[in-house]
């Protein structure tokens, strides 16, 4: 019951996350120290590869929509990963 409540709260937070994760930092021109530092220096080793969800954005969608969808995709990926582990681990245990 409590775990289900946590899932509901997480999904609700994912939907409102663009306000705090994207719009407010943009409006207030805030940037984390490490990100600002990385922008200032000559990069040493950079591994770049194509990902459709780079920096929580989706090409062709408005930033906040892409951010919220990315949040839900990430949450789903984590829960899905553990669900898969659960299925494998406990099917094996159940089967002896």
């Amino acid at each position, binding site marked *: 019951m409590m*775990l289900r409540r946590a899932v509901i709260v997480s999904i609700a937070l994912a939907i409102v996350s663009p306000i705090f994760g994207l719009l407010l930092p943009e409006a207030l*021109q805030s940037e984390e120290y490490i990100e600002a530092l990385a922008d200032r220096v000559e990069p040493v080793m950079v591994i770049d590869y194509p990902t459709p969800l780079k920096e929580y954005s989706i090409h062709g969608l408005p930033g906040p929509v892409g951010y919220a969808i990315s949040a839900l995709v990430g949450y789903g990926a984590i829960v899905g990963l553990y669900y898969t582990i659960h299925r494998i681990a406990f099917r094996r245990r159940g089967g002896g």
Partner: protein
Amino acid sequence: MHIPDGLLDPGTVVVTYVAAVAAIALSIARVRRSVSEFELSKLATVSGSIFIAQLIKWPIPGGSTLHFVGGGLAAATLGPWGGLIAMATVLAIQTFVFHDGGVTAFGANVIAAGASGVWLSYLALLALRRIGLAVPISAFSVGYISTVATGFAAGLIIGVAGDVLGSSVYNLRITPHVMLLTHGLLGLLEGVITMGIVAYLYRKQPTLLYEGARA
């Protein structure tokens, strides 16, 4: 708070990757021995919740942004081994799916947030509960310690890399201090959130807390 690509030298990348893979492997081996269906559900829920919570940021006008890190919460609900796995899971999804945090810095980020943030906060939690400090105060302290430890560890790793590279912009004389200062502030927010969640769980469903936290 993730270390991005471009800051770490190859030697630091290799050392932190080896240490992180060893820490993750050891944690998985420890958790596998006794994991139940309930524990696995808890691991999924805590990992997912920390991922979402890290997307909620609190901007400081014209300056930095703060966000929940989650090491203290992971330690209080999952213990040190499970907590490290949860943080590594969140970091892996952030890094390899969203490119948030450098691929070369994944090991460093696991060491900072998992090995340092989770483990130090877990040890602090045990000590604070043992001396009889109330759950809310212990939880606040643990949230605070986890964030400061994570930030300081990240600052140290970046500082070492900067020294190796001969950087005047980031090195051991600058980054650990800056990270300690900014995370000293962020730690207050982390402490309040951790305190709220842990105190609520302790009251409503203490089985969701790790044995050291509810003792």
